[in-house]
């Protein structure tokens, strides 16, 4: 079936009946069982993003560690490598993957809990439907039975292969061998690994390749030289250079897809923002690569598709601009992509097949060609500013954190004095409650009054914005699956909010890992969140 990549992964002994779990990109796009049943590649890609998002949401609510979430996602990817989306409903399969994944990673979660949280997540836009899992015993019993039948199907489909590996472990080992102790570098690499989970990279390449590529990107971002002491850094991962180049290229494409230029409504230029932009241009050329990576982490096309139907009000746009100014040098690069939700990924893929600068970059694994690209836009004309402003208001909550973290790194480099240590430490405690509010506000996206109320408080602005975007994303993502949510009145909305609040109270603070072996991985994720939150405060220092 799939083309073998690199060394055989030990399943060769089984012969034909045990094909590798790693397949070529062509096999994924044209050879999928879903394709034979008339499901298009674009549709399958959409479903892939949907079930990954769903698994992530449910795992967070069940307080399962990152490693379990990763395993559940891998199980789902592998299932649909062999089974069709046309015959296996994704929500049921995703729930089964969470249930089985929690057992595989020795973080067992009772079937009842998995079913309830999964059901509630699926119908979170429809409170009356979501309640049925609690009110009607038969509904719960049927759902549990369905998951158990699905479990046998999943077990059979994955051939009872429970040895699932992730890039986190190769990354940890490599950092140790390379003697790299920088926390930020590790966090960036782990964040990049998490970003590859919903992509097909994880079923094209073995974990050590993704780990190596993630470390390479993180090192570029942080200006770290991996080849110290004369060591060839990728040897530590035991990977071949040619496939590694392919992974790096595909990861570049993955991030490029997330940086369309024209997203959201056009807004008028704001003087404060303009001033900030000018300030941004001043940094030395060495910072430019960092800026580019910031943009690369702007939300994926799916967000664009979701956000367009519900344009944000003008006042919020202004806030967006103030909080997340983008540097001028990158604007020219982003003028080129034309905004069409569906064809864009394909267009980008086609474009990426040819460009010479990218090829040179891949061959050398060095940033020189990229620097040249970035230097050219330095003398950009006025229209570029407009484009820049247009691209800023849209980042999704998760990407916003990454983007802001990047920005804060840049900010540190430019003017460390601007953020006193005392102020920084004081800001930490305050950041915690906004996050809670963010969760609590998730169901408020339809309430204009509440939105206006929150807009009056600067400290509450960001959680509201983030929660709105997340709600939009989740709502639109699950819209088709649940058969269309019903419009709910104010009373229902209030009940919804009350229940969400209760859920947050039950969950408590950030999820904590269940087992020691997952502690490091989870701490990294938690650290990323904390750091991102801290970073959000710093841009405001530019305004006065």
């Amino acid at each position: 079936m799939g083309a073998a990549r690199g060394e055989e992964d030990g399943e060769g002994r089984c012969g034909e009946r045990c094909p590798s779990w790693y397949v070529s990109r062509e096999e994924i796009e044209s050879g999928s069982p879903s394709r034979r049943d008339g499901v298009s590649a674009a549709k399958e890609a959409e479903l892939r993003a949907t079930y990954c998002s769903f698994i992530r949401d449910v795992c967070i609510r069940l307080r399962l560690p990152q490693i379990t979430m990763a395993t559940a996602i891998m199980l789902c990817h592998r299932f649909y490598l062999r089974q069709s989306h046309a015959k296996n409903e994704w929500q049921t399969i995703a729930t089964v993957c969470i249930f089985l994944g929690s057992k595989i990673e020795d973080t067992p979660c009772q079937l009842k809990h998995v079913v309830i949280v999964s059901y509630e997540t699926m119908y979170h836009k429809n409170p009356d439907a979501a309640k049925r899992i609690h009110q009607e015993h038969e509904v719960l019993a049927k759902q549990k039975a369905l998951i158990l039948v699905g479990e046998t199907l999943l077990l059979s489909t994955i051939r009872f292969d429970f040895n699932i590996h992730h890039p986190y472990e190769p990354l940890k080992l490599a950092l140790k061998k390379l003697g790299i102790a920088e926390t930020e570098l590790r966090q960036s690499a782990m964040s990049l690994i998490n970003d590859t989970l919903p992509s097909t990279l994880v079923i094209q390449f073995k974990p050590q390749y993704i780990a190596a590529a993630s470390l390479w990107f993180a090192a570029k971002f942080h200006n770290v030289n991996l080849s110290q002491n004369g060591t060839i850094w990728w040897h530590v991962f035991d990977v071949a250079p040619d496939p590694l180049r392919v992974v790096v290229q595909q990861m570049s494409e993955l991030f490029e897809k997330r940086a369309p230029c024209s997203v959201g409504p056009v807004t008028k230029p704001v003087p404060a923002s303009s001033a900030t932009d000018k300030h941004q241009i001043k940094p030395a050329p060495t910072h430019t690569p960092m800026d580019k990576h910031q943009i690369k982490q702007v939300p994926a096309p799916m967000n664009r598709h979701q956000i367009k139907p519900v344009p944000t009000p003008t006042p919020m746009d202004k806030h967006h601009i103030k909080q997340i100014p983008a540097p001028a040098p990158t604007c020219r690069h982003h003028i080129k992509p034309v905004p069409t939700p569906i064809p864009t990924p394909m267009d980008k893929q086609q474009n990426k097949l040819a460009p010479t600068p990218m090829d040179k970059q891949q061959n050398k694994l060095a940033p020189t060609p990229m620097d040249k690209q970035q230097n050219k836009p330095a003398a950009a004309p006025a229209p570029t500013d407009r484009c820049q402003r247009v691209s800023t208001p849209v980042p999704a909550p998760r990407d916003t954190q990454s983007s802001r973290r990047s920005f804060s790194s840049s900010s540190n480099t430019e003017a460390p004095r601007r953020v006193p240590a005392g102020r920084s430490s004081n800001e930490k405690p305050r950041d915690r409650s906004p996050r809670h509010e963010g969760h609590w506000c998730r169901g408020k996206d339809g309430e204009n009054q509440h939105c206006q109320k929150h807009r009056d408080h600067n400290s509450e602005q960001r959680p509201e914005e983030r929660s709105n975007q997340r709600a939009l994303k989740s709502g639109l993502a699950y819209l088709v699956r649940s058969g269309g949510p019903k419009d709910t009145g104010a009373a229902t909305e209030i009940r919804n909010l009350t229940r969400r609040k209760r859920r947050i109270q039950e969950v408590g603070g950030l999820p904590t890992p269940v087992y020691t072996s997952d502690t490091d991985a989870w701490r990294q994720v938690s650290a990323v969140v904390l750091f991102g939150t801290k970073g959000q405060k710093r841009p405001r220092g530019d305004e006065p």
Partner: protein
Amino acid sequence: MDGEEAPLGALNLAEYAPAGARTVDCYRRIRKIGEGTYGEVFEAVDIITGERAALKKIKLDDGKEGFPRQILREIKLLKKLDHENIIRLKEIVVSPGSAHGTGGSDDHIYRGDIYMVFEYMDHDLKKVLHHSAPSQVKVYMGQLLKGLQYCHANNVLHRDIKGANLLITGGKLLKLADFGLARLFTRDGTLTNHVITLWYRPPELLLGATSYAEPVDIWSVGCIFAEFLLKKPLFPGRTEQEQLSKIFELCGSPNEESWPGVSKLPLYKTMTIRPATPTKRSLRDILQNFDCPAVELIERMLILNPSQRISAQDALGAAYFIN
């Protein structure tokens, strides 16, 4: 054209994935040969290849938590291990389930059976444990230790070594089987105390230890070795208290001098009978009629202090195997 998604609750049970697990129909059952830890065991033949196999049916605890975690763990471990003296898990086969009907009760939901397929072995060691010639004993012991050394090198504890779990084929090839209690271990981990069948259970487990490692398996091997020679079990206790008494009777009573840390084990005070004078080691006395190198090796396997017990690797280099 995007094509249609599957409707809510749809599962493709009629058409298993071509590259997925095979169905149990690929095998013809011949006879039932035993009752394993989690279900029945059948002798069977692969219809296509004619190969014999042992089908071990997995007992699913209906209505509870689905596929048992213990089986899942066993499968993970067995797929990692690849050694001529360790039973090979050939594959896992299923019989398909069926979708639930509308308004049907739980009885109508059939999740399908699952079978672990092992290579077929003629019989277990119990059949020959008391009837083996000294030269054959040496062959069996060598193979047992090689398989165990491989497990330990891969950080796997077997935790249930006894005659019933050592399988033999062709009259001379021995394999370690039944990894139902096996576990990956780390130096600083905490493990379940209630493992290993009573007659082959080491003193540290009987005293409540939860931090243990390879030596627990070595003790079991030592008991097997002695049983080969004596042609009867070495420590056939009926209760944990009696088991410990029988051990101390032959291996001497432990104290802080001979076994540092023993008094801090959870059950030390309650389980230890304090005799007027400490019992001296007399294991060698009951083995005096046997080959000296064999007795010497058994002695080193049955040291009370687990940190002083011989390892599988060192045992393979002992004088007993060199001659």
